[in-house]
């Protein structure tokens, strides 16, 4: 919005050479990061523990991106993310499941790629079905209403055992395959720089591809007409209507998109755990209230509405927890903690809880705002120094790329 409608006073552009050098820096940094991500399985070597942590961060990133679009861009509070994770995971297992595997379980036996797409579509449709409720409610009322989906998911997951496998055993999701290439251990498996590309390495590349698709789709949505209509509705529904935005449709659309992202994250969760199992209670587990809160924390820490921020948030919330757990098993951290001590889960909860508090107290824009501020400081130190708070354009909270 701000770009097209508000002509904000800006400092004059710096001379060209500096600008060109900055672009080069940016391109080189992006390339380096990309190569690093591609080579991660080689860097971590044959042990897959670190790779599992990195995979988990990507799951959180995909889900977090979906939630940040809904909460940050479209301004609709939702706590229903774990429900869509569950639906995505179960849909994948059902659509791709082998019909002959068990008499008690429903499986359609379709190709896994179809199952992934199907799971995402199903989640989107359920998001659409919730839209009439979402369209009527606002703020905290919507947040608590969406909480009902988590409880509904808990109950459905426990009672529909032919789909979910029940709380005691669950069911094993079928191996992902792409045009005959299985994402499982194979003999012989190809090697890359001496590291065998086995199941976890293959899953890493799959997750990386899915995360990139999710990331760029979300960036595209944010920077296009869709994102502008989301922000218009978020900022003022009446004004958005006056400008020709169909508020109900836009709100429903945001819910659909966010649910679809969560569904994809759900499929990834199923593949990561190699298990689809509904939770036994509403407060601990893979699809529980704790996950609702964790996803909100991801979005808050990253900065509401920021797509790259959601990735950072996922590193803080999801990455740290798995990393501490890894430390506990590999290096014996928290060994003296036993039950009731500071263990991996407790420590990571302390850190992300504190991060949420600090973000709200000192930088409501989250990691995204910190990043913007750093970038601005590198760009034009003099101009920034003259502006109070170092925020040259405070109205730009909408994750547009820097002009």
């Amino acid at each position, binding site marked *: 919005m701000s770009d097209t409608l508000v002509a904000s006073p800006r400092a004059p552009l710096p001379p060209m050479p500096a600008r060109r050098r900055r672009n080069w820096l940016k391109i080189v940094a992006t390339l380096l990061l990309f190569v690093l991500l591609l080579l991660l399985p080689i860097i971590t070597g044959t042990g897959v523990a670190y790779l599992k942590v990195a995979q988990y961060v990507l799951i959180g990133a995909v889900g977090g991106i979906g939630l940040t679009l809904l909460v940050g861009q479209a301004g609709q509070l939702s706590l229903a993310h774990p429900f869509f994770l569950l639906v995505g995971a179960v849909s994948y297992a059902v659509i791709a499941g082998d019909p002959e595997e068990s008499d008690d379980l429903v499986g359609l036996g379709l190709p896994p790629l179809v199952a992934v797409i199907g799971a995402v579509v199903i989640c989107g449709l359920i998001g659409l079905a919730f839209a009439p409720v979402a369209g009527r409610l606002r703020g905290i*009322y919507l947040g608590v209403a969406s909480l009902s989906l988590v409880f509904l998911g808990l109950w459905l997951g426990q009672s529909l055992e032919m789909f979910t496998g029940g709380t005691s055993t669950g069911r094993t999701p079928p191996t992902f395959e792409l045009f005959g290439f299985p994402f499982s251990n194979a003999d012989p498996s190809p090697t890359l720089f001496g590291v065998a590309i086995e199941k976890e390495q293959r899953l890493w590349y799959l997750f990386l591809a899915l995360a990139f698709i999710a990331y760029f789709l979300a960036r595209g949505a944010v920077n296009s007409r869709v994102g502008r209509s989301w922000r218009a509705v978020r900022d003022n529904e009446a004004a958005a209507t006056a400008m020709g935005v169909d508020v109900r449709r836009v709100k429903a659309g945001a819910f659909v998109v966010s649910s679809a992202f969560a569904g994809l994250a759900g499929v990834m969760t199923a593949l990561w755990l190699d298990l689809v199992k509904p939770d036994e*209670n509403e407060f601990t587990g893979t699809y529980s209230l704790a996950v609702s809160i964790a996803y*909100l924390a991801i979005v808050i820490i990253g900065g509401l509405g920021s797509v790259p921020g959601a990735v950072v948030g996922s590193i803080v919330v999801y990455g740290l927890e798995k990393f501490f757990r890894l430390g506990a098993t590999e290096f014996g951290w928290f060994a003296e903690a036993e039950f009731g001590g500071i263990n991996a889960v407790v420590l990571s909860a302390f850190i992300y809880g504190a991060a949420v508090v600090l973000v709200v107290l000192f930088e*409501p824009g989250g990691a995204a705002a910190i990043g913007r501020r750093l970038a601005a400081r590198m760009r034009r130190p003099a101009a920034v120094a003259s502006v109070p708070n170092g925020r040259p354009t405070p109205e730009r909270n909408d994750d547009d790329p820097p002009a």
Partner: protein
Amino acid sequence: METFVQLVVNGLGKGAVYALLALGFVVIFKATEVVNFAHGSLVLVGGYLVYALKDSMGWIGAAVVGIVSAALAGLVLERLLAGARNADHNGLALLTIGVDVIITEEIVRRIGADIPFIGDPYDSQPIQIAGLTIFRTQSIALVVGAVLITAFFLAFRFSSWGVAMRAQAENREAAALMGIRSSRVTATAWLVAGALAGVAVLFMATQDFSGAGLGRGTHAIALIAFPAAILGGLDSTAGAVVGGLVVGLTEALSAQYISFEFSKSAVFLVMLLVLVIRPSGLFGTKELSRV
């Protein structure tokens, strides 16, 4: 019929506890427009102190300390929120989420493997009246809830604190210009809400109420009070009481007649139904938007 009467009485007892929690949400929301996601951790603070102290200083002393500390925890939270000067009330609600994560993890860690029941004087001692079996916990909760809620409404209606509180909820600036100390009103609102949570937990972590001791489950029960507050309307104190009773009854009746697993979903479905018909809850102020 007998089962039904039994269920209604026990359901109302649960409802009274939900009403205490919901009233806390509403009082805080009215005074500050902040939705307190950390209500569950206020509950845990009170419950933990009762658990830790009841052996050394007796149950009654521990209960008093628990209630007072839950109230003080509310006050501490209020001070923290007051320090966040550049956050609006939505940001503050997010801040309470962060606080909640920390306090909950810490207390659950301290409780460890115990998962203690803390309703010693009344837990698991059902009363038999005229062929009905009524849980003692629920009946005491109903009486205590009724007394506290009546006291609250009397204070809200007649005391100078109540008048100041209602004035501030109506119009913050005008109230300040009339000489009402906004910070004092806000602080007492958090104190009251914390104390109510401290009372509620005495009944929540019992065999009769939830069948589970103090722990993560207790924290989750506090989230069920959210639908109670929302259902009645977040800015209506009477709505909180009605919402609490509706939630208690729905949970008790659906657990008996449909299934225990379904009972929590039933609470949320009833809330959804109410919200679809009345988006601001039963007694909530309708949001008007002027263009």
